[in-house]
């Protein structure tokens, strides 16, 4: 395992006895106590995640807005300072480079792109490759920033009471503000990847460690990537590499709402054609009537055994006690209530197509 990276909180994870595993090129905590405990802590109280592996790329300059709008599926024109949009960067064929958040900075002509850890270099190179003719710069600052996600119904109260961040109570969903912590910039953002209310805090690595330590002292549950995946899955949120990829377009993944086809962007024509003609495959939710667990890669079949798709993520849902999965299936079998079968080892389990948002999310509007 050469060149594995670590985050600024790596030593803290080891000291807590976390089960560590490589993820996106980083040695990351999968769980501290148990995935179930950590999952339930976020749903019922609050939990904190080290997400310092995520990438931070700034686009700045006179053409920053136009350039971001050219590479991004969502429409940043008119996005107000302090507001955030979710969307993708696509290849001309509609395949996905990455899914990301775009932050409209308070200073003019400046956008922060928060990208997946596994894709930082690829995204940066992609942006640079598209830059010719645009009057703006692209700067990858991923290594200079730490990030923690404080998620759950008690997250706001913890920020206000523990850190005195009363601004947390004022922020709406998908907005952010600039704070100062120990003289350094701290971006407080009401965003997350769990289906619960929550915040993401971007600041220096040193500040990140200090915030983490104070949260640990206050008894906030440390949460690993294991429950990050179970939480996002229940909330119907895609993971790049599983539900979005160069082969799985946003239209196939059911994320057309984040693709503004009435503006120009890379991949627009391909996505418009998919929307017009129907994508060959669609991402669906499937629930099976058994406690067996549909895992990524398991075949999705018809009653006669013919294969019509594949599971992309699946769990026995911790919050819902249901065996559910996302699966990419032939579009003909993507309607709600369509009966489908999943092959799990030697047995085949009957199920049906259900809504992808399995869990009722609790975002603060």
């Amino acid at each position, binding site marked *: 395992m050469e060149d594995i990276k670590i985050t600024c909180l790596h030593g803290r994870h080891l000291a807590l006895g976390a*089960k560590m595993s490589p993820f996106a090129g980083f040695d990351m905590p*999968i*769980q501290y106590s*148990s*995935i*179930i405990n950590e*999952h339930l802590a976020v749903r019922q109280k609050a939990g904190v995640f080290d997400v310092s592996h995520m990438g931070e790329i700034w686009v700045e300059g006179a053409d920053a807005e136009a350039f971001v709008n050219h590479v991004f599926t969502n429409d940043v024109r008119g996005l107000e300072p302090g507001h955030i949009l979710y969307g993708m960067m696509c290849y001309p064929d509609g395949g996905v480079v990455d899914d990301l958040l775009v932050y409209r900075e308070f200073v003019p002509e400046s956008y922060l792109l928060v990208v997946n850890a596994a894709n930082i270099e690829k995204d940066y190179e992609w942006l640079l490759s598209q830059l010719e003719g645009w009057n703006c710069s692209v700067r990858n600052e991923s290594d200079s920033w730490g990030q923690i996600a404080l998620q759950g119904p008690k997250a706001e109260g913890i920020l206000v009471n523990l850190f005195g961040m009363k601004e947390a109570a004022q922020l709406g969903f998908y907005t952010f503000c600039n704070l100062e912590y120990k003289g350094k910039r701290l971006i407080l953002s009401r965003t997350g990847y769990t289906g619960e209310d929550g915040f993401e805090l971007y600041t220096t690595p040193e500040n990140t460690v200090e915030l983490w330590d104070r949260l640990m002292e206050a008894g906030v549950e440390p949460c690993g990537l*294991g429950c990050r*995946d*179970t939480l996002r899955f229940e909330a119907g949120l895609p993971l790049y590499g599983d539900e979005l990829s160069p082969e799985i377009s946003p239209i196939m993944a059911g994320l057309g709402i984040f693709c503004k086809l009435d503006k120009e962007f890379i991949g627009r024509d391909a996505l418009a054609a998919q929307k017009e003609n129907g994508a060959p495959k669609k991402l669906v939710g499937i629930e099976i009537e058994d*406690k*067996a*667990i549909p*895992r990524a890669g398991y075949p999705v079949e018809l009653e006669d055994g013919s294969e019509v798709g594949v599971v992309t993520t699946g*769990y*026995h849902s*911790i919050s819902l006690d249901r065996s559910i999965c996302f699966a990419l299936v032939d579009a003909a079998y993507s309607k709600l209530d369509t009966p489908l079968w999943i092959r*799990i*080892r030697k047995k085949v389990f009957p199920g049906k197509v259900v809504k992808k948002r399995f869990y009722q999310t609790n975002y603060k509007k």
Partner: protein
Amino acid sequence: MSQILEGLKYSESHEWVKVEDGIALVGVTDYAQKEMGDITYVDLPDEGDEVTAGESFGALESVKASSDLYSPVSGEVVEVNSELEDAPEKVNEDPYGSWIIKVKLADASELDALLTAAAYTALIDE
């Protein structure tokens, strides 16, 4: 530290075997349950199935992953622990008390090929 009981036989795939009157009780070790984390489902065979030493007879599922169960011995499955269907977490709570299947030994000499407690301890310490 993982608990290892004296007097049991162990497989390299982290199952334990305890023999009582020609019947082998098969479960997974403390080390295995710790590695898996919260077990949420036990895929059991049917009573009457034939199992073969070294071959898969079922699976344990944790939140995150599925792990095949390999039979350390050959023979007929005379009983499955159906209690685990509704309470798979018992494998985490009491791995040596939670046998998964009982096998009528077809060939008791297969037990000689399995690891002693000392040999299994050495295996997981590696």
